[in-house]
């Protein structure tokens, strides 16, 4: 009797397991994803970012209330795992209709068939009115747009610079390479700062290409030859790039900068541990609150080819597998109201993507203390290479820059990196469609 019961139990477990597995395998049928009739799913990376999430929610609520046809549902992810979630969903053909993407990933996702081209004509704000770095295009087609951008910049204390006889640079007359080096030497010699420069070298991931490839570009190098995106030879390992790498490493050997900075570089600057911080516009409000008028917002150093900063932040797009593209476009057009450009920039302390929105944000209006960021974004921004190979290039650059800081031979390391990128481009047939 007991063995009979056991057998029954075992068999049923086996059947249930088999049924579940089979159901799991056959579940992914159907043509579109991310839409259930007129209910559309929206993904955002803002789960850990309450201020920005609230704006997204506001737009969705307004959209849902403003018309009766479509309904948008938000799903928020923590930023750290957002890209993995999108890639996994794309492999399973389960992408949502509407999603946001980090700017440099847009070409990769467009090429990979994740994103569909957009037609935003007839929306309240024209795409042409946006900062170029907030528009995600690939192959001359619009794939994504952002409501804001961020700008790299240097922060310092006016009092500290003046005490060491250092000129305060302006947008029109930024520091030259020599001036910058002299400033660092003076600050170091004063003995007040063990390492006067803070560049956030403890960070990882996209921060490395975002923060340091503009300096490489200011030296005259680049991540890849942008004329045809078919090689990195000559630009990533040319004499200009080697000069950049040598300078970069010298910051460590001269004791100007930590090889790996602490976990909260901005706090270290505010606490007076460092004199000059290479950081982004997102910390401006916090710094201004703490330092008041003593805060100096400095443009990037001109290493020869003019000051450079990275462009492109988070942008919105529509998935190629979206089951209701008309609804998704409708929502995206709706989100392009001037009000939302203002709301996003206000909530996140970032640079609004349009001049109309800038005028309504305290600090960013013409003559305001943060107008410098808008000018930087307009004058100095270089978007990261617009190629599907970017995620690979980015990871190679991160490792290369870290190795250079750790003392690797600049010429050899850069040439290896260029070879790796070229090999990757070649083995992927130059990412042809």
């Amino acid at each position: 009797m007991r063995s009979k019961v056991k057998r029954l139990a075992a068999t049923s477990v086996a059947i249930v397991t088999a049924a579940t597995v089979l159901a799991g395998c056959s579940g992914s049928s159907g043509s579109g994803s991310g839409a259930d009739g007129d209910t559309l799913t929206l993904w955002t990376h803002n789960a850990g970012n309450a201020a920005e999430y609230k704006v997204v929610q506001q737009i969705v609520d307004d959209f849902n209330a403003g018309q009766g046809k479509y309904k948008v549902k938000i799903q928020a992810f923590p930023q750290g795992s957002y890209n993995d979630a999108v890639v996994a969903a794309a492999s399973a053909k389960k992408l949502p209709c509407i999603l946001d993407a980090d700017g440099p990933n847009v070409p990769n996702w467009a090429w990979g068939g994740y994103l569909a081209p957009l037609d935003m004509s007839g929306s309240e704000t024209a795409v042409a009115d946006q900062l170029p770095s907030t528009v995600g295009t690939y192959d001359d087609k619009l794939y994504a747009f952002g409501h804001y951008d961020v700008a790299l910049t240097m922060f310092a204390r006016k009092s500290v610079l003046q005490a060491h006889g250092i000129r305060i640079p302006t947008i029109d007359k930024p520091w030259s390479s020599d001036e910058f080096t002299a400033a660092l030497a003076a600050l170091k010699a004063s003995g007040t700062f063990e390492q006067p420069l803070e560049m956030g070298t403890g960070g990882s991931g996209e921060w490395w290409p975002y923060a340091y490839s503009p300096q490489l570009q200011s030296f005259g190098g680049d991540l890849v030859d942008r004329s045809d995106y078919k090689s990195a030879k000559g630009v990533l390992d040319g004499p200009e790039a080697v000069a950049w790498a040598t300078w970069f490493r010298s910051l460590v050997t001269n004791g100007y900068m930590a090889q790996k900075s602490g976990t909260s570089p901005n706090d270290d600057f505010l606490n007076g541990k460092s004199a000059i911080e290479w950081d982004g516009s997102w910390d401006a409000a916090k710094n201004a609150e703490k330092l008041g008028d003593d805060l100096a917002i400095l443009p990037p150093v001109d290493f020869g080819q003019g000051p450079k900063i990275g462009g492109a932040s988070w942008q919105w797009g529509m998935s190629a597998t979206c089951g209701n593209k008309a609804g998704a476009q409708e929502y995206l057009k709706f989100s392009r109201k001037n009000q939302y450009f203002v709301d996003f920039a206000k909530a996140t302390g970032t640079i609004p993507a349009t001049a109309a929105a800038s005028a309504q944000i305290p600090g960013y209006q013409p003559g305001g203390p943060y107008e410098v960021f808008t000018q930087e974004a307009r004058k100095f921004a270089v978007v990261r290479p617009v190629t599907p190979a970017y995620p690979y290039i980015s990871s190679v650059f991160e490792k290369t820059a870290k190795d250079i800081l750790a003392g690797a031979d600049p010429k050899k390391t850069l040439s290896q990196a260029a070879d790796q990128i070229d090999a990757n481009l070649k083995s992927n047939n130059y990412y042809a469609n």
Partner: protein
Amino acid sequence: MTTLLPRAGARPPGRGPRTAARRRERLTALGMVSPAVLLLLVFFVVPVVLAFALAFTSARLISPTPAHFVGLRNFTLLFQDPVFFRSLLNTAVFAAVVVPVQAGLALGLALLVNTKVGGTNFFRTVYFVPVVTSMVVISIVWMFLYQKTGLVNHLIDTLTLGHLHGPDWLNDPSTALPAIIFMSVWQGVGFHMVIWLSGLQTIPADLHEAAAIDGADRWARFRHVTWPGLRATRTFVLITITIDALRLFTQVNVMTQGGPLDSTTTVVYQAVHAGYTQQQTAYASAISLVFFVLVLAVSLIQRFLTREKD
């Protein structure tokens, strides 16, 4: 499984009540193993076979073009990749140090907490605490300890009265891997202490008493009673530590990302990095395939060395 099933030809042909009972038994056995076998098939065998197949294609994580067969291209690239050899070397060094040190320390601790004095339960718990803590958390905490101005260097400073200054442990190519090894041993030693302890407690106390009456000293009792009594435990500890050590990933991913200058990159870290960050699924599969063969070889050698000699 094979011991349950009757061998073909071992019994005369015919249909008796015995055969029916055996058949029922066989069905029951099948029913019992099927859930486990199914799960293993779906979540282990299929992915492994897929990974092996992918290693010979041009598959990418993100790509509009379907993967096609490229023969041994990924392997050719792999064997020209200096980082791969560095990964292999680092993994080998890590395993070569961690396996004996961690097993030895764990045995020492197990012997200590197996004595009949008060407070052993307290120490058993203390040694076990790192094991139940997440490796990510431990890695983050130790990153702070290992900083140039961190606790470890303060300790070195104080203990040597300022004569010795510790290096920037995780940022110096010569100290990064040793620092990770030290932390990993500290984290894992408690687990294997418990395994040794369970082995120690299976040794009957009367064997020790008999040996003591015969005049054996502590060392002789360990050498001739305890050590032979731990035969099965030894094999288990050796194989689990080896496999754990070869899988080194979390610590590296959190603390150093393979740097500085590739001094801490490991095979698994490189595979994950190539497969996800760099989107080279096929290349990562090739790394995994080579790694699988190497681990299999190590396991087979260990099995051979620890086999029952009867």
